[in-house]
């Protein structure tokens, strides 16, 4: 055994899982081919809102290779309905059948299905399904949907509002009275498509022993096991969910979709494996979208830039039905965070969750926290602009101070920021950005008619939703814990079984680093198992930036239990008292004696041979921990962007981007920076490029493929300087905080501020994302025309 290179935590180790991906040996669901496998294809509604008058399956049933064709009516009462997993108290949950029965409510909703011997046969037959629709009026926009005369989607959801959620702290009315001014703004958080490069896919396979194995790219395999069991009516012990390699998740692969219920049901009915694969265009109209908010904001301010109070009214568009977590996103996850990194004692927010004739909206990288940070950041930037104050100094003035942590924003009883040092982040970011020089350069270039802008944004949020008992209060029907099992074999190698679920995060590497430091063994001696409910005891999976803080902590504690037991065994072998045994670098020794040390491997062997175990110590070296955190970690960061805007074309050139993030203890700086790079680019994409468009009259999805939906390419994005500040979280034994969502939270306001700064000579104070060339060009033209009048 090599000597361990301790500590592993903090080392920028290259990924242990890379080889299979580099050589084409990764195994994604679409790569699975089983004997006798049948293929399902879905007929989807071409209308955004319509009565289904008749579904004629006769031609499809007669088509070559077809084994089965079913409508929603055929499945009624057999499986479903699909129910959300997060239901904010007081929410009206609309009925959602797995396949539409008598009415469709968005373009892309399932209306019928075919199972055939090949995918081509299934596609051919779906084209033969004839559905007779009576088209109804549609509403796609959240503001239009709450108008008195708006088309109504569900009888059970009057006014199209499922949920009204309020947050209060201090007294905003008093703050508004005492303010010198009240500034108002309305911001739109554009609807996005998560766009995992691997679309969704499901293979359900009945096994001879009565088990049904479901292969799916799930961020939450154990949650999916429970949801599929309950919705299809399969006992949970007869269901095995396997998530192999996952081609990106970003929140989109943690909900419950119709196809994930249909394949298991049909595989049992037909006694054969049934596969469904989602085409990209299908994905745009069937996999959940993200964001889709409108917020109206009021800021009560003193003329020196002090913010006395903030009032927010959020409308969260959740599409046609309440997807898995949909009532929680625009509410708890958004408006709770509306005050951002700033001390704002008086806060009043109301969020309304609104149904429309669009694809259901659910979690997408950050889920609510990008929207919340956008409220805080757009508000403070607007105040600086309005009062002609420095954008950096106004933040310094209003920041929560280092001495204030742990900090409860607006006196909240439920929300606490565990730690932070925002001034430190800002100083580090300004230095890395070369802020003073850039500011001078910007001024100089403006005189030459070159429009450069500097954007800044700060954020904090909390992640790793926990503890379990608190989740009950907000209607989140799952726990906040994560499980870990560490099994040491008789040679001293470790296998880690984690309920967390990598989707490109590199958990094989990062979890091994955590375990290796406690076990004091070489990282090469550790294997990691995830994504199989038959192998991994239990879990909640990966979302909400929880894997290192919750899954990693669980593994840390579990590894400690291994060492504690191994020490007992070693003491027996060395014939000394347990308290005299020291453990370091894989050796059990008795300091101050000449007793020869024992290796971890020898102790592991004894654990399984069992010949010399002390009284009361059971054989084996295999521990399982369910770890429920006491609180949530609060990452934070300050990002800066430097852009040049061409007023004649509206094109934005991103010259530089600096991200300084505080994610507590860094487990692997290489992987951490990778998370920031990817998140920032998704945030830049929201700010500059991506937007889902619906035709407001017909409800047709206009961004139906990657031809129309502008996912950025390498030439559209800059190099990113990613730096870190480590303020350890006091909420977990490693001190780690979440990281996965940081970039997509910080980048949208940062980019918008940079572009607005560049456009400030034109008197442009506000633009909504995405800041596309036509939108910027039109604003410049309008400003010029206004100036010339």
């Amino acid at each position, binding site marked *: 055994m090599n000597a361990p290179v301790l500590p592993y935590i903090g080392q920028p180790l*290259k*990924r242990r899982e*890379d*080889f*299979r*991906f*580099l*050589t*084409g*040996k*990764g*195994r*994604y669901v*679409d*790569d699975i*081919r089983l004997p006798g496998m049948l293929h399902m294809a879905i007929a989807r509604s071409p209308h955004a809102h319509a009565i289904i008058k008749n579904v004629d399956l006769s031609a499809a049933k007669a*088509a*070559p290779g077809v084994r089965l064709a079913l409508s929603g009516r055929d499945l009624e009462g057999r499986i479903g309905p699909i129910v959300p997993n997060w239901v904010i108290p007081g929410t009206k949950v609309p009925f959602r059948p797995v396949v539409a029965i008598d009415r469709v409510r968005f373009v892309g909703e399932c209306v019928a299905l075919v199972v055939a011997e090949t995918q*081509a046969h299934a596609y*051919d037959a779906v084209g033969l399904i004839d559905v007779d629709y009576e088209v109804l009026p549609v509403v796609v926009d959240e503001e239009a949907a709450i108008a008195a005369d708006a088309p109504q989607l569900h009888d059970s959801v009057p006014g199209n509002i499922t949920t009204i959620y309020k947050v209060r702290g201090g007294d905003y009315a008093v703050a508004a009275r005492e303010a010198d001014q009240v500034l108002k703004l309305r911001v739109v958080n554009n609807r996005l498509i998560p*766009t*995992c*490069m*691997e*679309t969704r896919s499901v293979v359900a396979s009945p096994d001879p022993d009565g088990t049904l194995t479901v292969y799916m790219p799930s961020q939450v395999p154990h949650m999916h096991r429970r949801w599929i069991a309950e919705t299809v009516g399969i006992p949970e012990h007869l269901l095995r969910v396997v998530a192999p*390699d*996952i*081609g*990106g998740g*970003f929140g989109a692969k943690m909900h419950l979709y119709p196809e994930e219920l249909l394949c298991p049901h049909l595989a049992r009915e037909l006694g054969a494996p049934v596969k469904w694969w989602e*085409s*990209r*265009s299908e994905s745009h109209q069937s996999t959940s979208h993200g964001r889709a908010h409108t917020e109206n904001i009021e800021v009560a301010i003193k003329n020196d830039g002090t913010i006395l109070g903030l009032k927010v009214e959020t409308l969260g568009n959740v599409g046609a039905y309440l997807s898995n977590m949909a009532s929680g996103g625009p509410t708890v996850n958004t408006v709770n965070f509306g005050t951002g990194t700033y001390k704002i004692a008086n806060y009043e927010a109301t969020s309304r969750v609104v149904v429309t004739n669009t694809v259901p909206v659910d979690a997408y990288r950050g889920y609510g926290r990008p929207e919340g940070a956008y409220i805080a950041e757009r508000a403070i930037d607007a105040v600086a602009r309005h009062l002609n104050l420095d954008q950096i100094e106004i933040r310094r003035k209003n920041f929560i101070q280092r001495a204030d942590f742990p900090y409860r924003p607006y006196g909240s009883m439920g929300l606490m920021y565990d730690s932070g040092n925002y001034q430190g982040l800002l100083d580090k970011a300004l230095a890395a950005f070369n802020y003073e020089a850039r500011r001078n350069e910007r001024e100089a270039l403006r005189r030459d008619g070159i429009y450069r802008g500097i954007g800044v944004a700060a954020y904090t949020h909390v992640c790793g939703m926990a503890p379990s008992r608190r989740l009950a209060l907000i209607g989140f029907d799952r726990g906040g814990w994560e499980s870990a099992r560490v099994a040491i074999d008789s040679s001293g190698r470790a296998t880690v079984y984690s309920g967390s679920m990598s*989707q*490109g*995060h*590199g958990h094989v590497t990062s979890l091994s680093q955590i375990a290796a430091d406690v076990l004091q063994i070489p990282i090469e001696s550790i294997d990691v198992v995830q994504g199989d409910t038959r192998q991994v005891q239990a879990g909640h999976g990966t979302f909400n930036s929880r894997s290192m803080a919750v899954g990693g902590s669980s593994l840390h504690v579990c590894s400690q239990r291994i060492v504690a037991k191994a020490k007992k065994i070693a003491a027996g072998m060395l014939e000394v008292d347990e308290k005299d045994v020291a453990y370091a670098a894989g050796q059990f020794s008795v300091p101050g004696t000449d007793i020869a040390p024992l290796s971890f491997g020898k102790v592991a062997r004894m654990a399984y041979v069992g010949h010399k175990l002390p009284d009361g110590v059971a054989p084996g070296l295999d521990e399982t921990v369910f770890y429920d955190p006491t609180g949530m970690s609060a990452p934070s960061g300050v990002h800066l962007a430097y852009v040049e805007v061409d007023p004649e074309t509206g094109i934005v050139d991103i010259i530089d981007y600096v991200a300084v993030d505080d994610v507590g203890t860094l487990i692997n700086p*290489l*992987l951490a*920076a*990778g998370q920031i*790079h*990817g*998140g*920032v*680019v*998704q945030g830049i994409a929201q700010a500059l490029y991506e937007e889902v468009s619906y035709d407001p009259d017909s409800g047709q999805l206009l961004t139906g*493929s*990657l*031809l129309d939906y502008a*996912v950025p*390419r*390498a*030439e559209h*994005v800059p*190099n*990113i300087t990613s730096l870190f500040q480590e303020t350890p979280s006091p909420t977990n034994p490693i001190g780690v905080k979440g990281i996965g969502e940081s*970039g997509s939270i910080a980048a949208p306001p940062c980019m918008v501020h940079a572009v607005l700064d560049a456009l400030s000579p034109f008197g442009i104070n506000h633009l909504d994302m995405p800041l596309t060339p036509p939108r910027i060009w039109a604003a410049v033209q309008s400003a010029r025309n206004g100036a010339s009048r």
Partner: protein
Amino acid sequence: MIEAEKRHAVTIEINGSRRTLEVEARKLLVHLIRDDLGLTGTHIGCDTSQCGACTVEIDGEATKSCTVLAVMADGASITTIEGVSPAGSSLDPVQAAFHEHHALQCGFCTAGMIMSVRQLLRQHPDPSEDDIRHGIAGNICRCTGYHNIVRAIESLVAKG
């Protein structure tokens, strides 16, 4: 339908092996590679030839294999990711650079990206950063933000 199912013989050289297959006229090359040959390292990420996940080399040129019908590939020599570093051999320099610079996360775009990088370096042995970013613009990566992919490619250039 019957016309659609009529089969045509296609002979290709795939990763050095000569194979003859019977395919429907409508079958895309990417489906032949994945379904008939079982080479699942080549991925399908879209249906409009936008993402580049299915990029392979056809007669030495990086090509999106969803833009080619299988019958059009008759007589062609094709290299997929499985042929870049044959079993038992070490990683090729592009693959090694991707590992070294953490230029992959979920791995789904990686095979196609590597094919495009090989093409880029054949055409531009000494590319500028703009050349690099333009050269991989046909491949979408959603995880890395491209930053480390660009670093990986630059490292190959610096090595000469």
